[in-house]
């Protein structure tokens, strides 16, 4: 089963994908309602505002941040806070998720949410250019997320202790290893990428695994269009962007290899 399928099935089943879609819809509805070019609002304002609203809407739907509650039972009592500031009908359409199912999981100060082993951060991008998001030029956090290792064959030990250093470690290594923290996180961080074409008010919303596209190439190992009809058809009808084979993301051109002249003459067609 591919990572994409794993992620989408987990998040779909828990209602997280629907919640993300709702959050983005609400965020952009409010942004576009407030958008006023005559007042000096520009593309930057749209992106910034929508980004902030999206964070807020995710916190609402996932009961995180200032909308967090101490127990599921408390959730009902605070719903007026959750509804405050939303446009008419939005609160009614908001998917209901059990508080605590999704938690805040920021990364280096960048807002993030977590469900199970999946974490996601938000990223805005210019409409229509989702495949060309230049991750290497983004923040160190986004760069690092894009550089995450893909699931692969079992890892091999890295640098063994150099022989001439071994004496430095021998005594204490065993004890330290015994006390090792085994709770190392195995989170995979995804990106919830959003955009709007402000004149037409059309949106894009993708959830995917970003790819560090140094030297160009596609910005994703895989991405899923959250505005497309429900994800239930996955694997039967519309195929998601197929992940390439491991290592196929190498965007650097091949080395300079040329046909010799005699081959060209003999076989050139």
């Amino acid at each position, binding site marked *: 089963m591919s990572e994409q399928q794993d992620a989408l099935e987990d998040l779909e089943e828990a209602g997280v994908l629907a919640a993300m879609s709702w959050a983005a819809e609400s965020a952009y509805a409010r942004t576009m309602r407030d958008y006023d070019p005559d007042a000096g609002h520009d593309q930057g304002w749209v992106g910034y505002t929508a980004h902030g609203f999206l964070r807020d809407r995710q916190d609402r739907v996932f009961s995180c941040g200032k909308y967090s509650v101490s127990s599921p039972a408390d959730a009902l009592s605070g719903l007026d806070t959750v509804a405050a500031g939303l446009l008419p009908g939005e609160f009614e359409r908001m998917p209901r998720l059990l508080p605590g199912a999704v938690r805040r999981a920021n990364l280096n100060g960048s807002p993030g949410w977590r469900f199970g082993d999946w974490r996601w951060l938000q990223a805005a991008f210019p409409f229509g250019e989702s495949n060309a998001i230049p991750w290497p030029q983004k923040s160190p956090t986004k760069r690092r997320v894009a550089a995450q290792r893909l699931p692969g064959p079992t890892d091999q030990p890295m640098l063994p202790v150099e022989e001439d250093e071994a004496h430095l470690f021998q005594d204490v*290594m065993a004890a330290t*290893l015994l006390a090792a923290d085994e709770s190392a996180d195995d989170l995979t961080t995804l990106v919830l990428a959003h955009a709007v074409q402000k004149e037409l008010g059309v949106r894009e919303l993708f959830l995917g695994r970003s790819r560090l596209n140094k030297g160009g190439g596609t910005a994703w190992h895989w991405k899923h269009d959250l505005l497309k009809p429900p994800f239930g058809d996955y694997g039967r009808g519309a195929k998601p962007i197929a992940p390439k084979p491991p290592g196929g993301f190498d965007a650097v051109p091949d080395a300079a290899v040329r046909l010799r002249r005699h081959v060209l003459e003999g076989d050139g067609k």
Partner: protein
Amino acid sequence: MEHSRPAEVRVSDASRLFDGRRLTLARQLAGLRKNALAAQIDKSPTAVAAYESNSKRPAPATVAQLCLTLGVDPSFFLPGAQRPEAGSSVPHFRSLRSTSQLVRDQAFAYGLVATDVGAALERHVEFPNPDIPRLSVDVEDEQTDLPEQAARLLRKHWDIPIGPIGHLVRMAENRGVLVVYSPSQTAAVDAYSFETDNRPTVVLNPTKNDYFRQRFDVAHELGHLVMHVDSEPGDRITENQANRFAAEFLMPADEMRDLLPSKADWRTLGALKADWNVSLQALLYRSRQLGAMSDVTYRNAVLYLSSKGWRRREPGVMPVTEQPSLFPKAVEILGKVGIGEEVLAGEARVPLDLFRVVTSRFPTWDSPQSTEPNPEENLPSGVISLFRSAGK
């Protein structure tokens, strides 16, 4: 010009034209000692030695037996390219003590196969000319700063701008260095390098799957190719020199000295790692080497790193490893003009399966069944035949 499969060679012809060095090659690829092969073909070890030294020709029936046992066609035993005697092109293997002679022989035989494939491909395509400066470094001298000088020389010679180095494999390939993956069966051998026919070759370990470690490996092997062409490989001093070369090549002292933290500041180290495409461990090593970090700080940092399991797998950040392109690209463009893999494998006189491993962009992973040693093959533990059908 017509390209077709080479005419099938009959066992009797192979017997008449038999080249013992090809038998040595086949035996090493199969991971067999002479006595093990002898037992399998029901001959004495002395007879096998005599075949290999060309002092005795095997009878056609013996050639047939050899083909069956080793999994090669009779044509494999026809005379091959003349090679310089062993010694002038001994590969640089790391940790010699942990790899047996048999494993090293097999790995080097694989390197020679790669050379044969290269020669076959270069009849049809042009690869970039080798462009590696040579600097003979005194392998007895532990104090010299020649490894660092050699790294700076290579950076200058290759016009590498100040700052982090990009795709290292591609950079080497465009300077005529052949980079290939070794088969998964030989994963016990670390990356190694050698030079034949003036084509420097780096063979990567297929199982690392670690972008940062692989880059350090490539830089380390470039160090051998620049500094140690004529020297005996594998001793502690040359290995240390190659590590120093790699450290300076990837993390030049002039540029790194002010950037490296004096404490194990993981955030800073993580950012440096992302910028310079080197591991946390390499950065720590460099920090101590350049005196930015004290021995005690270094030790504690490495211990912490070990305790977190980061020595095996550093946290989070792992780009896809760099992939070689010279051979795969050549196969690709030759395929477009009607020269297929089978023809090229035939010209290189390499079994097709092995040809595909050599010319692959990606490490090849055999199914568990085929990498499981067959007890009947009488192979020492850890050595697995590179021929798919060997011993069957």
